[in-house]
């Protein structure tokens, strides 16, 4: 298995760093999946993660000037590594002004993703900095857990209000309750509600718009849903907040799919990066 990528363009480096930093705020550890065309940051929704799942997809050509990889074997031409994105983020942040940055899979004291960069200096010889981020190679028998999650049979699909606004609301609500209800309907309405013994608070959003139906792989095959009826999910507010805190870039499109009392599926689309985040409901 081999991997070597090189980023030369400053804007690409910056963008890549921001993606990795966002991922690092969402989870302490995740799987980096590499194939010849794309990179994925994957967190499979296991009980250990509190049921939260994440899927982030990047097209390598949009970031890397050079990209070479050889997967496990020709049939499984992919590499799956478990990594702490925080380390990767830290490494990338320090090399923002580099002339070029290389990311390689290496074997040092253990398998590592080595980020090495040439930094500009006053003298003729560049400064070379190397960061070795330890990784765990994931054996092929576990790869089935890392597939792209299929679009759930959602009840409602709706565009999100500006993330900053939601974040402000959620931040304040977090002080009052541990659980938040997200509800929305196919008529562009969304509410965020909390309820405790002492107080109940809800924030209403209108005219959000709904993505055209027929989007996504599997759709609800049952008779047309009443557009005014709300689908809701009750989630742990901290998980939602964690998702919002990490967002560094305004997405070009943001939407969420709700499966009534089951899971909320948040989707953020940037030009060259897509991020999906699943938060399960709590009783």
């Amino acid at each position, binding site marked *: 298995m081999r991997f070597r990528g090189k980023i030369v363009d400053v804007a690409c480096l910056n963008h890549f760093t921001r993606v990795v930093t966002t991922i690092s705020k969402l989870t302490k550890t995740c799987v980096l999946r590499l194939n010849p065309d794309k990179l994925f940051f994957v967190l499979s929704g296991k009980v250990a993660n509190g049921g939260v799942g994440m899927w982030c997809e990047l097209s390598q050509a949009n970031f890397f000037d050079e990209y070479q990889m050889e997967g496990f074997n020709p049939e499984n031409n992919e590499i799956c590594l478990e990594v702490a994105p925080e380390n990767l983020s830290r490494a990338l942040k320090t090399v923002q002004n580099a002339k070029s940055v290389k990311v390689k899979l290496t074997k040092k004291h253990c398998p590592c993703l080595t980020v090495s960069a040439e930094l500009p200096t006053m003298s003729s010889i560049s400064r070379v900095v190397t960061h*070795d981020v330890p990784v765990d*190679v994931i054996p092929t028998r576990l790869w089935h857990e890392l597939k792209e999650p299929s679009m759930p049979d959602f009840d409602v699909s709706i565009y999100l209000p500006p993330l900053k606004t939601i974040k402000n609301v959620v931040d304040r609500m977090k002080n009052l309750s541990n659980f938040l209800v997200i509800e929305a309907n196919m008529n562009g309405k969304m509410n965020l509600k909390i309820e405790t013994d002492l107080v109940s608070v809800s924030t209403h959003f209108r005219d959000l718009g709904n993505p055209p139906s027929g989007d996504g792989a599997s759709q609800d095959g049952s008779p047309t849903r009443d557009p005014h009826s709300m689908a809701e999910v009750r989630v742990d507010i901290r998980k939602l907040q964690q998702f919002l805190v990490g967002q560094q870039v305004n997405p070009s499109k943001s939407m969420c799919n709700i499966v009534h009392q089951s899971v909320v599926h948040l989707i953020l689309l940037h030009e060259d990066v897509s991020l999906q985040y699943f938060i399960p409901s709590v009783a």
Partner: protein
Amino acid sequence: MQCVVTGGNVKVLAKAIHSLSRIGEELYVEPQKDGVSCCATVRNTITSSCHLALRSVNSSRSAYACFLFAPLFFSRYSIPNGKDFRCKIAIKSVQSVFRSVATLEKTVEKCHIELDEENDRLTFTLHCKHGLLKTHNLSYQDSESLQAMFDKDACTTNFRVNPRVLVDTVAHFPPSLEEVTVTVSDERMWVRNYVEDETERSKAMLTELCLASDEFDHFVVKAHNSFTFCLKELRGLLVFAESNNLPVSMYFKEPGCPVVLSVTDSVMEGNFVLATLSDGSSPPKNKSKGAHTQQSLPPDDFMNDDMDSYLIAMDTSVASSAAEPPASTLTDPCTSKLPEANHKTRTHSEEEEEEEVADGPDRPPNKKFRSLFFGSVLPPSPQMSTQPVTTQEVLASDSEDES
């Protein structure tokens, strides 16, 4: 004693105090009287005898800092005649006098420092704009003299570099990083983070920076060496050096001997002495970061990144990672590694063992950084008298007679 600091020097003094606060909890104040300065310098020797010394040391005595201010630094400088005066003050109190450096710059015109011996106080009076006077009365305690013995002339390896280079280097390491290893060869300096535990090594991120000798104003290496010291303490000096735009000089002899970092200008000298880990390992040969491969830019050889050998090992028991040669207990007289190691040095070892208990919970267990360089000055105790005084080429002879 009376000193007056005016104008821009107030800021310099404030920054010096903030730097010292990164080292220890107490500020030792001592106006020097003698003709012999105990911090011998290669150049810019402050030979004028009456300078003011501000010093600090950390609890495990593995880091020491000293700022010497010549009389010219002050607009007025008079010291008590006759008896030696020295004291120590809680550094946090002094810091609170000079709390906000930015404000100081804008509002403070002068700073008076006066000794009030009757009440055991040092009075700091800040003369600010608009006739405002801020007076701080800080109680002091009498103290022993605190002087580290080091001889820069004996240090075969020395550098001088623009502080910006070091600040940029240090920026690559997380603020929480404790220790760094610096390895030098004829043309290069490598700085990497030091990971103590075997177990940590498999999880820790390793960072290494390679600097070419071109980046230094002065770069002399007599022997290829590595030395490991605490980065946190260095940062205090770097902040000071950068804000005053003074080049930083580093003096080093061999692992186990302390590394000395200093900044000087015509009226002031700052020295930071940091203990180094006594690992006798030569520049690492097992890693690809060995000296010879770094002479040129790392080649674009894809082949070296072959993972196949790892994959084969994956299903069988994985061989233990290539370890650094374990730090050996050297018989080097500079070495004092573990409490039970033979303390042939001139330190007061029993004193150190007691002090280890005093280490705060946030201090790393600096067992390996046993203080190596204090040749002074505590009142004689039963243990002291049995300590053999070893001859040590780095040391000056025993400190002055304290009577």
